[in-house]
């Protein structure tokens, strides 16, 4: 059987050091977040809702589900099932997992516009 020379193969997968410096080494959720104020203003309670106090219908339209996808069905199939359960017209999913893979996928019952 043909064998790859080990040291040579490594050079294919590893980037040279000078390119490494340009890369951001932190995952997005470890980036620092801080808010600065430009000018203060108040919000009118007559319009819109706090995200946690929306009426249920609005809540589902502006909602998302962190769904534990079983291994087997594809992300697309699971989306159709969620659509059926909730009875919403539009729904999307962020990030696709192959049919064999389980795990967390976000799903958002989108706006029915």
């Amino acid at each position, binding site marked *: 059987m043909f064998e790859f020379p080990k040291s040579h193969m490594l050079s294919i997968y590893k*980037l040279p050091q000078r390119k490494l410096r340009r890369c951001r080494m932190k995952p997005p959720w470890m980036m620092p977040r*801080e808010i600065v104020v430009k000018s203060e203003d108040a919000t009118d309670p007559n319009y819109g809702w706090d995200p946690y106090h929306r009426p249920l219908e609005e809540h589902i339209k502006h909602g998302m589900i962190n769904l534990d996808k079983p291994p087997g069905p594809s992300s697309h199939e699971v989306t159709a099932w969620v659509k059926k359960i909730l009875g919403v017209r539009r729904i999307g999913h962020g990030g696709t997992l192959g049919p064999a893979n389980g795990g967390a996928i976000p799903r958002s019952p989108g*706006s029915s516009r």
Partner: protein
Amino acid sequence: MILHGDSSEDEVRRLFEEFTGPIFQKPPLRASVKRAVRVREIYACELLEMADRKVLFRIACQSGTYIRKFCSDLGQVLGFGAHMAELRRIRSGPFVEDKNLYTLHDLLRAKREYERCGDESPLREVVRPLEEALEYMPKVYIRDSAVDAICHGANLAIPGITKLDKHIERGDTVAIMTLKGEAVALGEALMTTEEIMELEKGIAVKTDRVVMRRGLYPPWKGK
């Protein structure tokens, strides 16, 4: 991951270390993207358990990294090949396995509960407000008077901004939020935070995707 030959735990551990950082990767034969070698970042890679040729490991990587390919690449370096046996995504940005993760059964039960008893709390527990998905995004908070214009697709100008993230760079994707904390739209920043703080007028964010529906906030009638 299943190795196609015998290797020691130390050897595998050393390879994981070698593969951490930016790596070259060519998407597999059956891929939904163009098959060109591209660079993906492996943030961390950790060996959890190893039994004979079976390897259990945990990996944190940039979006768009093919783990199936990562395994076979690792096998190539080992000399005898390897393949992925099973994969479970334990985190995707703000979505983690141990916080608000529900199965389809939970969803169905919550819906039934609501239909039978009119209790909406289980359904509210499973379906989360979409703002939670934007937790790690840089945010720009805007005045009530600017909301309706953004909902109709207008770009965000500086006078509409009240608060914003400290570290916005030009070209970043930012979330436009109301002062109540509702998401209005996603957009591309055309200015850095410093510029927005200094200037008095100009377009700060180009609106790409509107999330809020129109007509929720009143249109701006002028001063």
